[in-house]
């Protein structure tokens, strides 16, 4: 009996929020709860619901490298109540990676705005003698065997960053793919692999805790989260430029006025000190943009990664 009444109490509590307003905006995420994109989505949803004056619900539709979420959003009503928060992979990399993708970015979606920049940082474990990226690369060139580097999967941003580094410096690197970041981190800590690229957000704890050493940031400017870490360009390594940005997309036929008002709300939310600081503490760099800027970024990154994927013969059947 006590349990039942508790359950009812819990029901009341949770439902009140949802029933209060009618306008529910669904923020579809192509990853399961708990991952980095989901975490950013939930932080954004909280603030965005204040800006939009309605509930913003995070909907997790994981699977098929984002294709399931993409199709869900592409097929929903283009009235601005369904948005897709995607990292760069599903929108700018997968079109070059998969020969038969079930969605088409140009045909099915209209950009709303960028949310965060997530640049990659090159890390190694504390046992590795290399103190910076230049030393890491130099060591790989004289080593007997190629240096094993982890990634979060074939065609993932960390994988492409490894390819860029090898191309830019002639380093001899061995790509070792993992299912996600957690097992790769464990193997790096245990010394099974020598280094990896990863989103700063996922590594900042291990870097601050002294377990991993940040060797260089793969972006034109230093990260506000790791101000002491030099960029790769500062160390004389050009052409390793990765940004695993997250952006919002709406179904293609969403009216321009609606997109503009959503963009305004997202920009305002991202500029609120509370959300700005929270995202930065997560290790992501809040970076609102206009829809046009996101469109340009999408086009540029699609071209950049497409070229690399073709040149390195990275293919997925």
């Amino acid at each position, binding site marked *: 009996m006590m349990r039942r009444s508790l359950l009812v109490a819990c029901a009341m509590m949770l439902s009140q929020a949802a029933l209060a307003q009618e306008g529910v905006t669904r923020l579809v995420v192509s990853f399961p709860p708990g991952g980095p994109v989901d975490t950013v989505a939930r932080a954004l949803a909280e603030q965005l619901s204040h800006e939009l004056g309605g509930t913003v619900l995070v909907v*997790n539709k994981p699977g098929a490298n984002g294709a399931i979420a993409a199709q869900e959003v592409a097929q929903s009503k283009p009235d601005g109540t369904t948005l897709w928060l995607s990292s760069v992979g599903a929108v700018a990399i997968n079109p070059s990676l998969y020969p038969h993708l079930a969605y088409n970015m140009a045909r099915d979606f209209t950009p709303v705005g960028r949310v965060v920049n997530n640049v990659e940082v090159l890390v190694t474990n504390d046992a590795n003698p290399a103190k910076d990226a230049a030393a890491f690369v130099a060591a790989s060139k004289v080593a007997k065997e190629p240096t094993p580097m982890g990634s979060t999967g074939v065609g993932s941003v960390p994988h492409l960053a490894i390819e860029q580094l090898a191309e830019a410096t002639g380093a001899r690197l061995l790509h070792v793919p993992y299912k996600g970041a957690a097992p790769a981190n464990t193997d790096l800590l245990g010394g099974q692999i020598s280094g990896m690229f990863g989103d700063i957000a996922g590594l900042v704890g291990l870097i601050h805790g002294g377990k991993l050493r940040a060797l260089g940031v793969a972006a034109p400017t230093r990260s506000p989260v790791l101000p002491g870490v030099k960029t790769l360009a500062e160390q004389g390594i050009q052409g390793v430029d990765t940004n695993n940005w997250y952006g919002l997309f709406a179904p293609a036929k969403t009216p321009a006025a609606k997109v503009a008002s959503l963009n305004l709300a997202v920009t305002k939310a991202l500029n609120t000190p509370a959300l700005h600081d929270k995202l930065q503490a997560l290790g992501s760099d809040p970076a609102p943009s206009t829809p046009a800027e996101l469109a340009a970024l999408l086009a540029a990154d699609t071209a950049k990664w497409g070229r690399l994927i073709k040149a390195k013969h990275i293919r997925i059947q």
Partner: protein
Amino acid sequence: MHQTLSDLWFGFGVALQPTHLMWSVFGVLVGNLIGVLPGMGALTTISILLPLTYVIAPVPAILMLAGIFYGSQYGGAIGAILLNLPSHPPHAVTCLDGYPMTRQGKGGTALGITMMSSFFAASFGIVVMIFLSPLLVRVAFKFGPTEISAIMLLGLLAGGTMARGSPLKGVAMTAFGLLCGVVGTDVNSGTSRFSFGLAGLSDGVELGALCMGLFGVADFLVSVGKESAQVGHARVRMRDMRPSRAEIRQAMPAMLRGTLVGTLFGAMPGTGPTITTFIAYALERRIARKPERFGHGAIEGVASPEAASHSKTQIDFIPTMSLGIPGDAVMALILGALILKGIQPGPQLITEHPDIFWGLIASFWIGNVLLVLLNVPMIGVWVKLLQVPYKYLFPSAIFFICVGVFSSHNALFDVGMVGVAGVIGAVFIALDFPVSPVVLGYVLGPMLEENFRRALLISRGDLSVFIQRPISATFVTISALVLLFQIVAYLRRLRRPAAALSSGEFVTEE
């Protein structure tokens, strides 16, 4: 040592603060209740209640989420034992003997033993966590792809032959499970295998759907329309509600062994709780004087895997809390909640936020005490559930399965998969093939293949790494011995066909 005890004292101070205690109790209760529903696991419950953590402070938020996690595990055992519905995959092993016990009218006993084992093992795991975590973290790093694939090999050999009946059938079903595990994107090459162009299959067969189909739905398909199969459901005797002293004496050593297995595996990263329960069960069966009792309601077959899964679960919190590396999806969600509260998980968590770390450890124990206090008096109520007429029970259960499986990935495709798995399971049951090795193969296969290929990738194709590295060499040697033992036993049985009948030729599988 002294420092640890004073830290722990501090932790209890944190956990027992009224608001903290309240949220912890709330989490445990909700987790327990929702865990009882078939197919609803901790992941769903935590993701549903995540928004609540926005409005409460970090310490109570994490205590609540952790409470949901182990509360739902206690709850999940109830569905597994009473209805053959393992909503939490490690409980698939508990079904093997727990459900036959229910059909013999001893569901209450099975639940009582489960609660006892879970509590004991969790408490033991917590103690290990408190005193040995720096050591365990160091050990964990010794396990690379080479070691993990060697362990998986041993798991396959030990588990594949544990099913009742012909060992050949066990191997065949394990192979079928391995095949189910292969479906989806191959990590090493990115190739999509056996997905037939279906987006829903590109990430593989969903474990929850497979378990619910092979066990729950298959059982309903076998017993629907057959009164005789449903008898056990209605038979509840009050005097069977509490485990007798003899039963406790019988379960005790198994519980201890299970706890040790769970603790050992707790130290090895990348070995999930499901594998741990299979190993614990296989061990019990191997050392039992009458192995043929297993699968027909052997109480050790309930006590040992339940204990193993609970000690493993507790110890799994070590990498999550001391490194910030989540062991599984649930841990990732709990860490995500911490991050949302502005707390960066990582090695510095213990020193920067001792209230979270030690408060959590203290709350584990408080939560486990609460769960026992809550669940033991409730056993009678749960068992009464079985008196719901079968004609109402199975349609409701099927519906809960659909919703539960849907909720883990918000995918209706997975619900369809339950139906398919149910048909496959029913066909196998009808043909007297054991279904539990399928789950084992499914869980072990991808890890074996993935890590084996990764180990050889890193060693540049040198197979000798498996015997050069001491930990993996040990496991390879044990595997070889197990295999040898099996072959010798098989040959001996071939020579004396009469003996085959008396040793475990009970081929029926519920």
